[in-house]
């Protein structure tokens, strides 16, 4: 019980906090986006593995690489126009 009291609590108004961070990020030239991803249909038995992806550093890097590829493609497409 006592341990529960001294554990850090989640910040109140999480959406306000994220929104404020987004505004700071935009102002500092480091914008970020928040995506809501659902577990793909047919993979329901991997619920836990899916949830763990949120904090998986390797997964974050893979997504980062994907974003870089996508942005490079976009830039090439613009140049060709």
């Amino acid at each position, binding site marked *: 019980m006592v341990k529960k009291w001294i554990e*850090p*609590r*989640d910040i*109140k108004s999480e959406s306000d*906090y994220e929104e404020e961070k987004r*505004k700071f990020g*935009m102002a500092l*030239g480091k914008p970020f986006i928040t995506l809501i991803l659902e577990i793909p249909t047919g993979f329901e038995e991997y619920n836990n593995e899916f949830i763990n992806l949120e904090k998986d550093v390797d997964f974050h890097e893979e997504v980062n690489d994907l974003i870089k590829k996508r942005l490079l493609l976009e830039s090439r497409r613009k140049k060709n126009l």
Partner: protein
Amino acid sequence: MDEIQIIFILVYVLTILLSATKIVQMSVAALIGALLTAWFGLLYGVFGYEQSLGFIDVQLIMLLLGVMIVVEVAERSGLFRFGALYAVKISGGNPKILFVSICVISAAVSVFLSDPTAMLLIAAAMATITKLLRYDPIPYFISAMIMINLGGTSTLIGSVSNMIIGLQAGISFTAFIGYLGVCEIILWGLTIAALYFLFRKRLGTKKELPKYNPWESVENKKLFYRSILILFLLIILFLTLENLGVGAEAVALGCAILALAISGSDPTDIFKKLDWETIFFIAGFMFIVGGLEKTGLLADISTQLFQTVGQGEFGASMTTLWFSGLASSTVSNIAIALTFSPIISGSAGIGTPAVWSALVLGTNLGGATTPLSGAVTMMGVGALKREGISLSFAEFTKVGVITSLIQLGFASFYLIIRFNLGV
């Protein structure tokens, strides 16, 4: 102590325990306590129904609502975000200057914003900037929490406990600054110096800041300038209050109406954002303290306490400062202010500016001793947790205890000099 007084003490302790342990929300805890106070008070004939309606100080609630509305409109204009971005920019990427400017802006923002709102804003800024520059966020977060707590001490409207004490003691905005202004300036400097000394090796190395213009973060420049104007007007009116013949609550509400009229926002959105949790907590707790007062218990404590420490101003001031400082490190400082105010005003010869100043300093300065001391520290630790960083209870407390002791120690020295308290 009679049976009725024991029942009322149990209700008081139950409320404190419920709110401190977060078994229920702080406001619900106070409202449960108020309900029990009403029940036992009416049952035992301690007070009548009509009499109990006077337990809630409507002036205080109006003052709080007025200030909250003005500040909410100013916050929407991006004024405080602009300040934080500017503070980062002037550092030029030098971690030492960044650290000092973050400390100063944290305290400055908290002069106007409520502690949780200030923490939300500064935590978002800290998380973004420390990630961007790859700095260890812990020194910056801990220092921001401590400085936000300190900033609230600075003016009559800086924290809820200041408003409670100010109204009860009849201290005006200008008198408040006159009693504590110099103390505050020195406390800011001392605390920043202590934090810098404690964290100097963890601040990181100089990095290049991205090029940005703080003005680009201001979405509505018209509202931005109008918000500055209203905050300025609020302060000017508070400063000249004595000549106006009205109370602080009238000025706050007047400025709130003006802010609502010019904000262009949906007032329903603004009302939703007000800190109703604090308002209901105060209303409930005022009722509990009102009930305790009627049992004669607070008058007894007042007499006993100040007989023990002596009738001298020195003993009364030091007891008030250190007792309220230590108590507010574990219990809500609003509860401490509401409990101590009637004790001090009920005691003949004790309600002097020195003792009231001691109460202001004590209730505020103890608020960042441990991660559980107040809303600001809980939120700061919560924000770090959300960023995936764990800050242990011991790591924060080590710094919190040192800064609280420095602040309370200096406050004792200041009170002795400022009010010429003979030892």
